[in-house]
């Protein structure tokens, strides 16, 4: 009797878990199909080529222009700026943590970095408006500091925890025997780090950078708050820009249902999806390669 009950609970549990698993797949497929469906609807009205290469985003103009190149360039500019700051800072911090910091300092620094990851993006955006913005404005003499540089700095801060953590794991995964070999021929810590440890950890560091890029491309709230949102073609770091994510967030709330503009926002989201997917695939690829290298 008891055995029969146990058999039944086992069956029920299996059913429940299978359903939850399938549900996740269904949700993912649903999102993807919705994105695809609306994007196709948009491309029936506007040529994909014009959409990608058009240099004017003016959905409410007459005639309306759906050129997403300014948005694409804005996202690229802010992401590259963020990485320009976050990569050296991240690798430097990770190197310090893995090779230089003493136990005590490490036990403070490590949780602090992890806590940085849990600061909500809206709070960081707020920081951009009240601290960084006026700061940049003061230095450059502009009326406000809401521009690409502001967004890049904030995104750098947001992607730092990921980059630091993954890079540190990669550096600490380098076999100690390599370091010992380097020290045994008279190398100091710096030479060992630059010429032996970092090259050996390169795949892991590359993965860290890719994950950071993915984080920066997809981030919405911070850039929405900090970059000024001018939908003109970006002229540089000291000019206001409007990223793809910010555009979707701003316009989606006001656009009439199933108009060309509505479909256009889905098309932007689809391009964004493809970009983050690509970055994640490349990142995963290097993470896996790194794991294999570790195992051998």
């Amino acid at each position, binding site marked *: 009797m008891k055995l029969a009950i146990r058999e039944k609970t086992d069956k029920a549990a299996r059913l429940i878990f299978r359903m939850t698993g399938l549900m996740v797949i269904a949700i993912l497929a649903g999102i993807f199909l919705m994105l695809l469906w609306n994007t196709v609807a948009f491309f029936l009205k506007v040529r994909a080529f014009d959409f990608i290469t058009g240099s004017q985003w003016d959905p409410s103009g007459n005639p309306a222009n759906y050129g997403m190149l300014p948005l694409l360039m804005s996202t690229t500019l802010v992401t590259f700026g963020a990485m320009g700051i976050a990569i050296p800072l991240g690798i430097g911090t990770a190197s310090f943590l893995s090779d230089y910091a*003493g*136990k005590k300092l490490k036990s403070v620094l490590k949780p602090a970095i992890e806590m940085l990851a849990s600061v909500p993006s809206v709070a960081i955006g707020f920081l951009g408006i009240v601290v960084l913005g006026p700061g940049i404005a003061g230095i450059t003499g502009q009326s406000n500091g809401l521009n690409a540089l502001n967004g890049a700095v904030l995104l750098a801060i947001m992607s730092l925890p990921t980059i630091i953590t993954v890079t540190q794991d990669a550096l600490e995964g380098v*076999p100690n*025997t*390599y*370091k*010992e*070999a*380097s*020290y*045994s*021929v*008279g*190398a*100091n810590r710096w*030479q060992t780090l630059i*010429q*032996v440890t970092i*090259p*050996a950890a390169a795949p892991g560091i590359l993965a860290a950078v890719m994950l950071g890029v993915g984080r920066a491309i997809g981030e919405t709230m911070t850039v929405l708050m900090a970059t000024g949102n001018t939908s003109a073609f970006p002229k540089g770091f000291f000019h206001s820009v409007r990223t793809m994510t910010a555009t979707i967030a701003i316009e989606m709330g006001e656009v009439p249902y199933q108009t060309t503009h509505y479909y256009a926002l889905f098309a932007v989201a689809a391009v964004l999806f493809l970009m983050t997917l690509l970055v994640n695939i490349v990142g995963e690829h290097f993470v896996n390669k790194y794991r294999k290298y570790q195992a051998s």
Partner: protein
Amino acid sequence: MNEEQIKLAATAANLWFGRKQVLKNVSVAFPKNKITALIGPSGCGKSTLLRCFNRMHDLSNDVTIEGKFLLEGEDLYKGSLSATEVRRRIGMVFQQANPFPKSIYENINYGLKINDIPKEERQEIIEHALKESYIWDEVKDDLQKPATRLSGGQQQRLCIARAVALRPEVILMDEPCSALDPISTSKIEELILKLKKDYTIVIVTHNMQQAQRVADQTVFMYLGEIIEAGDTSQIFDEPGMELTKNYVQGHFG
């Protein structure tokens, strides 16, 4: 040992890992251009002692070292010698062959680069080091090959070449053959015997036959202390202590 010139020595050395004492009042001397074997059961402090001489313990926290370590009378830990200088003068070959994940050429070039040896001289030094380590004939056709693709024995000879390329005065070897097959082992032993004329060699080994084959002097350690030291033949044939006799005859270990 007194009549020979002492190259490397330790006097009244104590070492702790945290609170655990690993070396207890160790005094030992290694004669110049001789091979000295350090033997003793696992955990007796042989490798730990070896690593004191090229200051490898500097890299780990929690290590306390007392006593003197001398290279030709010069204190390795005090005075003008830096750790990197000490390591250049006292080379090391590790238990696991540990070539860098770089080409054969780069593996030796690295140490030369680090020590500011001019570019023009490097090619010749690399070739000489590879010849000196009896691996030249096996690798000369493709010096750009990744070192990790060499066999275990070749890798270990490459590591020896990496050490000798810097013309150290002493080479420390930490069980250099423990991961190798008998043929590779005999090649390395042959090499060690040939290196003796230019270098002072200290070799940690678990292999009694190996100690007898290569070493002029043998030092027997047990539980962090030196029990007995002397000519290899004396240690193995007429050991003065019961403990030494039991160990070299394989009664424990």
